């Protein structure tokens, strides 16, 4: 049995535990839009007493629950696993539930807007259908030929590791809606769809890679990516999105020659 670690209480642990609930005043500056009320977009400031260790989602909830119930946003899990609450916080795409106030300079007003490049339906809610359509278009499912084996398909640990990174995607759209190419006309498949294609193209069990590559070889496919890395910076799951896109590009080139 290893020795107790408690005498070497680190500063971080101390800080975490001694979090007597101290609050500061933060200003949320939210971009609001409700077509039932007005065609105009407005920015509304909310002053809140919050603990800096709370999440931006907590602040939004505080507004909704205590100030204005009509503020509308999507959320579910509250810990960065369901992909509901991607939004633009201080100009950058993030998950509201994975962003602590203290990490985004709560001294200044925190701006909150819907993600870019998708139709805004109300406040922070955008139309996700085109996003999921692009996902469905890359055939995101295992394609195999021949008879099913009786037991599992074998796969070496290395082969499994090959596509591990891209299996983490939660389809939050933070990447796609941060991509300058996507903002223009929304026709580009977008990084999320490519990430999910990558997950199958590099799965040793899959035999549909060729078809997926053909789809992504299209005019609106991988070649539109300009390596701006916004997607990689935005991904809350830490997926190396641009790297995955480059790997798909290279796979296309090597298989076409």
């Amino acid at each position, binding site marked *: *049995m*290893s020795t*107790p*670690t*408690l*005498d070497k209480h*680190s500063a*971080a*642990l101390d800080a*975490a*535990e001694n979090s*007597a609930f101290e609050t500061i005043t933060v200003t949320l500056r939210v971009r609001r839009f*409700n077509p*039932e*009320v007005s065609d105009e977009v407005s920015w509304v400031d909310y002053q809140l007493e919050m603990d800096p*260790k709370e999440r931006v989602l907590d602040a939004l909830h505080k507004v*909704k*629950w205590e100030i*204005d*119930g*009509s503020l*509308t*946003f*999507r*959320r*579910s*899990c*509250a*810990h*960065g*696993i*369901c*992909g*509901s609450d991607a939004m633009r916080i201080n100009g950058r795409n993030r998950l509201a539930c994975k962003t*602590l106030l203290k990490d985004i300079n709560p001294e200044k007003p925190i701006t909150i807007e819907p993600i870019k490049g998708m139709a805004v*339906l109300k*406040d922070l809610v955008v139309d*996700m259908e085109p996003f999921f359509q692009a996902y*469905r278009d890359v*055939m*995101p*499912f*295992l394609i195999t030929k021949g008879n099913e084996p009786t*037991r*599992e*398909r*074998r*796969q*070496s*640990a290395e082969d*499994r590791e090959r*596509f*591990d990174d891209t*299996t*983490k*995607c*939660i*389809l939050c759209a933070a990447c796609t809606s941060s991509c300058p190419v996507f903002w223009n006309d929304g026709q580009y498949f977008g990084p999320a769809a490519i990430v999910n294609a990558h997950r199958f193209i590099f*799965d040793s069990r*899959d035999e549909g890679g060729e078809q997926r590559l053909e789809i992504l070889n299209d005019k609106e496919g991988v070649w539109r990516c300009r390596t701006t890395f916004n997607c990689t910076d935005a991904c809350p799951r830490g997926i190396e999105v641009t790297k995955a896109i480059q790997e798909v590009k290279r796979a296309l080139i090597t298989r076409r020659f």
Partner: protein
Amino acid sequence: MQIHKYDTVIVGAGGAGMRAAIEATKRSRTAVLTKLYPTRSHTGAAQGGMAAALANVEEDNWEWHTFDTIKGGDYLVDQDAAEILAKEAIDAVLDLEKMGLPFNRTPNGTIDQRRFGGHTRNHGEAAVRRACYAADRTGHMILQTLYQNCVKEGVEFFNEFYVLDLLLTEVDGVKRTAGVVAYELATGEIHVFQAKAVVFASGGTGKFFKVTSNAHTLTGDGQAVAYRRGLPLEDMEFFQFHPTGIWRMGILLTEGARGEGGILRNKDGERFMEKYAPVMKDLASRDVVSRAIYTEIREGRGCGPEGDHVYLDLTHLPPEQLDAKLPDITEFARTYLGIEPYTDPVPIQPTAHYAMGGIPTNVQGEVLADNTTVVPGLYAAGEVACVSVHGANRLGTNSLLDINVFGRRAGIAAAKFAAENDFVELPENPSELVVSQVESLRESTGNERVAEIRKALQETMDTNAMVFRTEQTLKQAVEDIAELKQRYKNVSVQDKGKRYNTDLLEAIELGNLLDLAEVLAVSALARKESRGGHYREDYPNRDDVNFMRHTMAYREVGEDGTESIRLDYKPVVQTRYQPMERKY
């Protein structure tokens, strides 16, 4: 109002709903209604693994798994169901693998397995490696894989549709399933779905607790809808408290962390589980560990300035192992606590996690209207249902298994029923109840706010109906809930619009939580014994003579419109295993 007609309607697109949909779509015209986009379902939050006696890494068999499940459930498990669960587990895992799920692999390329609480070799001798896993995001991979296969099969989804009512029509004195009523979030429109068969797979109800691993959206809608339509709820007093939630936040840190060698320690650095469960130690079943943690805290050995938590210590594990096997939960500790798990122990406390109880079903997933009669055409699977394979306490990894095994069964059975039967006529004015519910909330000018009532509900549940319960605390809970239900009548919403009115839906969800919390408290009050997840300090022992039976709670409406709860009981199915004392 719009009316749609489908052979089979599935409510919920979590693991259970989508597993059912894959089967049902192949066999009948199927619609899946879900209040969240399918990939947002809380199955995606599950971390640790899915149990199946594959015996890929060490000797194991489904019979041991059955035993562990029954013992884990403190013998309240229906043993025929547990047997099916353990037996079909193997195919359930292999099916998922064939659908593409990227499990972690052993050196020879088969599915890797790890240890989990309560899973043992040869009836309790030692921990066994039975949990199939994909790092610490097994649920995520299951949810993604099932959604991918729904895309492949062309399953028809109605996303962001809230099912708010179940339609039952009496035909020749028998209540039969006619369909469901749903509210479309985007437009505020009411939709009636006429269906031959309906499968409820709408998940858990943990949001009536404050510290919980459950999502904001887990508000027990399915249970509440069925209950309001006169169907019973089984074993609602059994709620699982997971030992390791992030302190104060409730975000889960998987049991897999202890499966990989993590250790619980109190403020003196002592590995206290050695005292409570000498054999299984940190991997004893969840109810045992949660009680041990609270005992440590109560006896003054808790950590932190207020002594209100203990530590999950992973510091002795090599960082590479943490990165490979537990990347997500270590990330949670960093993000939400600012702690580095390589070097610091993580403050944790038990967190409300899983509803063992729910809508009673038989092993085909058919919903029961009482102890024996099935409701023709109505099915339930997943956390919303109570088969009962989990009895008084669910073993870790058995729920991901449950949703796959019984989701599949329910999907097949429902489609088969739809193929063999005709539509039942819709009741007159089918959307009446929902319309009046929605309209009265929208028009209410009351001065109560949803958030305040919900907060009060969560406070009373955390204080009075958590890990330790007594007659007194439970009475307090019942009293508080009754008062909150009165206040709820005066609740009003600020958003009066039609488009994406989540304000309104939160109010409806709160109504569901209140009903279910009441059932939980009343059922718990009546169960004067301690068993599994239900621990009564005033009755600390298991009482097989009086309470070896399932609770069935019915909603009764008196002549004058007053509501009350009637409790009834149902025998436990025992096949092979006689109840024994439960030791780990």
